[in-house]
């Protein structure tokens, strides 16, 4: 089975090392990965703004690029959520339907498809504040949510990261409160967005982590922006980097 790697536009531009880590990790696991070079974006920024008509061409292009693969993996919960649950701006072609069915977030792919739990080439003897995005939790069911008090507690990102020797997780308050990114919300409601980011960092910092990790780079982009403005130099890592064996 060949896996097509989807690298979200903001990772392509600002965090290519996350794309590289994702690719290398999949290769380490013996996956036959290709990177379709014509890819651009999944259309989420326009669709989330209500601009459906303005997302159509982008979504159709995305379906054309990826629609013939049996498996598409992307290191982004928000892109996966958009494709799986909200990909309706473009024409309903067999390619599009295929893409919707076959797209996985990296965490889902590792946890549910490959069923990997150990990463013996990695070591990370550090305290981690793990952030899971709202898309991942409430859109993709990748972790339990605090609102549903009777559900068994689980977290696929945490289960994967636990397979890295030495890793420790710190507990912090309001663990699944939104970080405040929210796509265009980050600029249209800048003041609230920034306050949410500042608050999330404060709760995390109270638990004294050595770094902050997430499987969603968009959240980290926002949190890192907030942290650097406050002169906090705590490092931020994407989950793919940790699993791939990055050192602090």
């Amino acid at each position, binding site marked *: 089975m060949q896996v097509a790697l989807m*690298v979200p*536009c903001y990772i392509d*531009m*600002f*965090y290519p090392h996350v*794309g*590289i880590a994702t*690719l290398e990790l999949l290769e380490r696991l013996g996956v036959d990965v*290709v*990177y*379709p*070079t*014509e890819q*651009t*974006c999944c259309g989420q*920024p326009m669709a989330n*703004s*209500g*601009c*459906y008509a*303005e*997302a*159509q*061409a*982008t979504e159709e*292009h995305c379906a*054309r*690029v990826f629609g013939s693969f049996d498996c598409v993996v992307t290191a982004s919960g928000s892109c996966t959520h958009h494709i799986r649950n909200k990909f309706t701006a473009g024409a309903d072609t067999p390619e599009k339907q295929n893409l919707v069915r076959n797209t996985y977030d990296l965490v889902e792919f590792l946890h549910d498809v490959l069923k990997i739990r150990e990463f013996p080439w990695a070591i990370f003897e550090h305290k981690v504040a793990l952030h899971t995005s*709202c898309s991942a*939790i*409430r*859109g993709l069911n990748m972790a339990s*949510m605090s*609102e*549903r*008090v*009777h559900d068994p507690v689980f977290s696929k990102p945490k289960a994967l990261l636990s397979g890295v020797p030495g890793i420790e997780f710190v507990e912090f308050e*309001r663990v*699944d*409160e*939104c970080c405040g*990114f*929210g*796509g*265009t*919300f*980050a*600029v*249209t*409601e*800048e*003041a*609230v*967005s*920034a*306050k*949410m980011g500042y608050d999330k960092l404060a709760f995390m910092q109270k638990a004294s982590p050595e770094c902050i990790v997430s499987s969603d780079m968009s959240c980290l982009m926002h949190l890192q*922006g907030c942290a*650097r*403005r406050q002169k906090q130099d705590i490092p931020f890592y994407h989950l793919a980097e940790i699993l791939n064996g990055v050192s602090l």
Partner: protein
Amino acid sequence: MSGVVDQARNAETFLADTVHEERLDKLLWAMRLRRDAAARQVPEWEELRTLASEIKEHTLSNLSQYLIQFEARATANGMIVHWARDAHEHNQIVYDILAEQGANSLVKSKSMLTEECELRPFLERRGVRVTETDLGERIQQLDDQPPGHIVGPAIHKTTQDVATLFSQKYGSDPRNLDAAYLAGVMRENTRPDILNAPAGMTGANFVVAETGAIVVATNEGNADLSAHTPPLHICSVGIEKIIPTTESLAVFIRLLTRSATGDKITQYTSMFRGPRKGAVMHVILVDNGRSSRLGMKRFWHSLKCIRCAACMNTCPVYRRSGGLSYGSTYMGPIGIIMMPTFEIRKYSELPFASTLNGSCTNVCPVKIDIHEQIYGWREVMEENGQIQVVKKEAMRVADEVLSHPTLYRIATTALSTALEVLPHFAVYNRLNSWAKHRDVPEAATETFHEWYRNNRLHTNEEVRRG
């Protein structure tokens, strides 16, 4: 017609007041945690939510039948039933009932519907003195401010704010910050109004069709007083509040207060099925856009709302914006999906006051898909031409670039312009707003695409599509 509510700017103003913002955020998050604790004690919590949702969906899909049944039973019980097509008709009916009895003053308990209809200014302009008896509503009435939260109308005020206000209006001690003292001040000052009022008004949390009953849940006892002391009791209720049976009422009573405050029930859960001897009871069934909303395929589920405010308490945006920032009768997540049905232009920005995180949907006791409706309203705003032209144009440009790989590559290799192209930053008039409180991410020295071309294409087949 008023202009567009700029919720973002109002939120920014609220946030600048760190004392009030941080207090409200902590207080309401604590309320959310109390809700969680209460839900944990009920093993069948999720099943109750599903039942509540299904009961409401059944009722709303058979609403005409249940309205007729309620009217017949209530009338047989001795209530006088009225129908109001809109807010103005509602207000006129109330005034006419009062005028017929020669009543020029009214005591009332909390009713969001009467806020929606702007009843108080209507009556006051016609010489009727209105006294709110709910503590939070009274505080807001004295301060000439609308309610900021549908369960705790004055929850955004500190104890000092209330003490200062009461000292101005009631002559009480502005330095006494004991909440019990302040509640006592209000009680003393409103008690004479209650005892002497010729008319009392309540809302209703639920209306039971089978028995012709209205149900009111309060902690203060003020609704019962407003109903029992005057010889005239008027109850106003939206047509969507109907439920079929007393048996179904139990499901909602078990969910309502736990969702709202974490208590199992309110101090007074009262049922009125008719006037007491020698008194008169009127019920006004109000439409005011509800029947139209019933026909909106994507949005009619918002009519299931039982006004618990759990969505507001959990919403990270509401807690940091304050309820008044929405400029609307109903605020927070439920407000976002209801208010555009009243005035689409005025509230066209509200659907963007959300990160679509989905917490609201998962605390809603009647399982309204709130965050999905918020997303749906964004599309409606765009279709209706309510989105600012500059933003729409920016999105069009983004779509053009992002659907053409060559254009995209050109745009992203010119790294200094990457920020202008990236759709997340393509917004209307706030191009530099990301950088106000956050550092901007550094553009990488080479994109992933370039790295792949330089490091991998000689080992892999290049995959062409398109």
